[in-house]
């Protein structure tokens, strides 16, 4: 019994599960992490699918990883090194494209080619976003209060929230209200006139969502991405040296060092519930493990509709979980390249490509890409976010060769032929991606040594993310904060006592942020104190 009983069992060795485990172990708990796959990291994994080329298979950029987690868990000591992406480049077919440089004056001149006015407004916009980001930051670190509860602790939290809001100026309040309700483009329209600039900036509002840049609510996602913080600099994005898997590995090493036990190839079949209380888990091989806390690091659908017995949950709760929108909308293409692919509009492997590249030539282009998806097809001309990590981190490819990481949107999980049809559509999707990219980069096709195409269906099958949603659920207004994942159960706890949630499907949600895992751990530790 003794070696099979734990204080906490974390289901799923994704970054949030690992963060949660590390914090719990740090507080002295006996913790076990169970990962179904042979690698840790969930969507944050590095795999060598072609000899010598290391793909960051799914997640590929970091910006949202909370710095306090890096500090608390001493991640650099365990191998984490984040290389900043300095530039952002939006190529064009008939024009030089747009590059945003680390040098403010250079960026101003670059934007001035599109619009003088925008070039001057651009830094002011960044400053405004930084302000909003700072307003929202404390909310990220907060266990969302229940606005209907009148218990004193909860009221205190509400009061704290009220004070935060109270401290804002009227303009800031309006700004916040607008961010939550407007579309990314409507919001950007208030600031900018250049279509290419708006498209470039607007994509932050749709990454990982099943929304178009003109869909209301996407302004929030825009800001969500502005909160990325590397070395205290807002909005900066980076890649992890050695691939995204290094993040998970570093967290895992840190967790192990703090005493957590981690098992791979140990898939959980079911969560054991007795008398409304989680008692432990049953593994796929039938092993039973018990724990005082069972913490789910997988998405809400999988947790409640996959790992729990329907009888353990009431029908209304299940209905609300079913209503929680997953809607994977993106795919991933990873390429091993024989040589550097030249972009026609700005040749060379200079600074401009050592950042992230967006295939987002116009607002209408992005919206059309969404229209395809809306009616159940992948985008013929998709939005893409491309990173060539080998330019910054030569360790991921043989000398002179390159890895290209292409995040593609939209690839709806529910294509009209049905998600099961993805295996047949997958390569057509991959072709559409390469074809689109080749328009900007004619050299590309002939330099491909190997390609990996991941549809949302594949992401679901391989990583276990329901409907392939990289954020464990849409980041739409009704699925945020005290409503994530469901309004009545948004505080990491669930209707089953002792069962907790710690992944992106809870506040504050997606991205390699780790905040959900850390918040959940905090909440669990508090509950122990009370008991």
């Amino acid at each position: 019994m003794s070696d099979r009983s734990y204080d906490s069992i974390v289901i799923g060795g994704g970054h949030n599960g690992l963060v949660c485990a590390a914090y719990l172990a740090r507080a002295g708990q006996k913790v076990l992490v169970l990962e179904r796959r042979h690698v840790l990291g969930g969507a944050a994994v590095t795999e060598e699918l072609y000899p010598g080329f290391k793909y960051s298979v799914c997640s590929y950029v970091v910006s949202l990883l909370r710095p306090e987690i890096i500090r608390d868990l001493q991640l650099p000591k365990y191998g984490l090194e984040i290389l900043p992406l300095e530039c952002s480049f939006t190529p064009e077919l008939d024009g030089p494209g747009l590059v945003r440089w680390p040098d403010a004056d250079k960026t101003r001149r670059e934007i001035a080619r599109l619009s003088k006015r925008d070039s001057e407004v651009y830094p002011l916009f960044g400053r405004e976003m930084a302000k909003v980001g700072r307003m929202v930051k404390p909310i990220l670190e907060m266990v969302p209060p229940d606005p209907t509860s009148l218990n004193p602790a909860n009221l205190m939290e509400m009061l704290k929230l009220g004070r935060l809001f109270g401290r804002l100026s009227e303009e800031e309040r309006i700004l916040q209200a607008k961010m939550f309700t407007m579309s990314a483009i409507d919001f950007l329209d208030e600031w900018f006139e250049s279509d290419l600039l708006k498209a470039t900036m607007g994509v932050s509002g749709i990454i990982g969502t099943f929304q178009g840049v003109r869909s209301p609510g996407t302004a929030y996602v825009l800001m969500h991405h502005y909160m990325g913080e590397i070395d205290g600099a807002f909005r900066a994005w980076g890649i992890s040296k050695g691939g995204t898997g290094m993040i998970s590995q570093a967290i895992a090493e840190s967790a192990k060092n703090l005493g957590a036990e981690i098992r791979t190839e140990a898939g959980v079949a079911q969560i054991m519930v007795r008398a409304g209380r989680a008692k432990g888990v049953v593994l796929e091989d039938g092993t039973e493990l018990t724990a005082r806390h069972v913490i789910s690091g997988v998405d809400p659908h999988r947790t409640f509709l996959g790992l729990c017995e329907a009888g353990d949950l009431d029908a209304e709760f299940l209905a609300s979980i079913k209503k929680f929108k997953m809607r994977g909308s993106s795919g991933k293409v990873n390429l091993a390249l024989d040589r550097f692919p030249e972009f026609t509009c700005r040749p060379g492997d200079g600074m401009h490509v050592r950042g992230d590249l967006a295939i987002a030539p116009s607002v209408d282009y992005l919206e059309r890409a969404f229209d395809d998806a809306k009616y159940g097809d992948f985008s013929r001309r998709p939005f893409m976010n491309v990173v060539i990590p080998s330019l910054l981190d030569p360790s991921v490819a043989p000398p002179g060769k390159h890895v290209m990481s292409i995040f593609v949107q939209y690839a709806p999980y529910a294509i009209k032929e049905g998600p099961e049809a993805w295996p047949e559509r997958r390569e057509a999707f991959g072709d559409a991606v390469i074809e689109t990219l080749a328009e900007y980069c004619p050299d590309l096709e002939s330099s491909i040594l190997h390609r990996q195409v991941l549809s949302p269906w594949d992401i679901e099958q391989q990583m276990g993310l329901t409907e392939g949603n990289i954020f464990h659920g849409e980041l739409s207004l009704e699925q945020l904060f005290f409503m994530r994942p469901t309004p009545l159960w948004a505080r990491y706890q669930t209707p089953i006592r002792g069962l907790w949630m710690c992944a992106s499907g809870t506040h504050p949600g997606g991205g390699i942020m780790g905040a959900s895992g850390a918040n959940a751990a905090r909440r669990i530790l508090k509950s122990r104190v009370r008991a």
Partner: protein
Amino acid sequence: MPLPSPFHERTASLCESLKFKSWAGYFAVCSYESHPDPEYFAFRNSAGLLDITPLFKYELSGEDSAAFVSYMATRDVSALKIGRVTYSCFCDQRGKVIDDGTISRLDEQRFRVTTGSPAYAWFLQNSRGFQVEVEDVSESIAALAIQGPNSRRILAELVGPGIEDLRFFGLVAARIAGVEVEITRTGYTGDLGFEVWIPRDGALSVWDAVMAAGKAHGIMPVGLDALDIVRIEAGFLLQDVDYFSAPRCIIESRKSTPYEIGLGWTVALDRSPFIGQKALREEKQRGSDWGFVGLEISWEGIEEIYTEYGLPPSLPTQACRMAVPVYSTGRQVGQVTSSTWSPILKKYLALATVEAKQVEIGNQLRVEHTVEYERMRVLATVVERPFYDPERKRT
């Protein structure tokens, strides 16, 4: 990376120190030699030639241009005569300074405005309802400052004795080396001096002509380090050093009104509405919280604290832009934002923002000064600005 200015070919080959910095995205020489002193004395004793192309320049034209400029600026320019220049603040609606610069009336319906930071979007944003055209001429117009007691003689050789008649803050069209230019009697040195506005293509010809004509009058190319010293002597403030442009401040307390930075004299309150009028009127009635002063830091005090450590007194050869606290009876009452040793006056000068009740001339304050890693306080006295104000500047 900064861009070369139209004068870069000349300035770069003359710049032995290789000391450049970025000024509004252009390469700008800090000092041509390792030490700015010779350039400083050129400004004060003969003439200095400075590339001021990086200034932002806008032309506003159209039926309502006078009304529009008066609406944007703290000055009322509706009565400004053609061929005259004025200096003004530009505020936001809360009366906080966005920028300061000169406004030249080129024509009945045409003005040129210079600013320290980009202002095109701000002009455009407020132009609704006005018959006015806003054009950014920052890149198409190159500019040189020719400053110093010999500057008038040099220009007279180039454009004729008519330049003698150009009054302080006057503007005249002229031809230098075949290039049509405009000359204003303005500057940032507090001395006799001129600024020449040149079509970009003619930049090098004008430079060469001025340098050639100036040779006999001791002209020297001058960098920003020397400028920083003379502008403090003249009591001029510098954006991003002595005050911060309001829209670029994250917190309110960083912003300043014209009254708070000693530019209250540029505010014409009683007239048709202008941006910031209401707030400035209220401040005028209520009184400002802060004031801007010139301080003379006691040299005896400096000597004393160095002597305590057995050291000779030493000050940096350049102007210092690091803010240090100012105290009055043990309590912090403000900060010094710029300071310099004045080689001519032999005084240690500073520009400071202090609580409004500390601004009286003669008031004695204390300024922090660090010697051997230890923070000390030195006596400083509020004095009149400008610290250095030669008669020739105006006459």
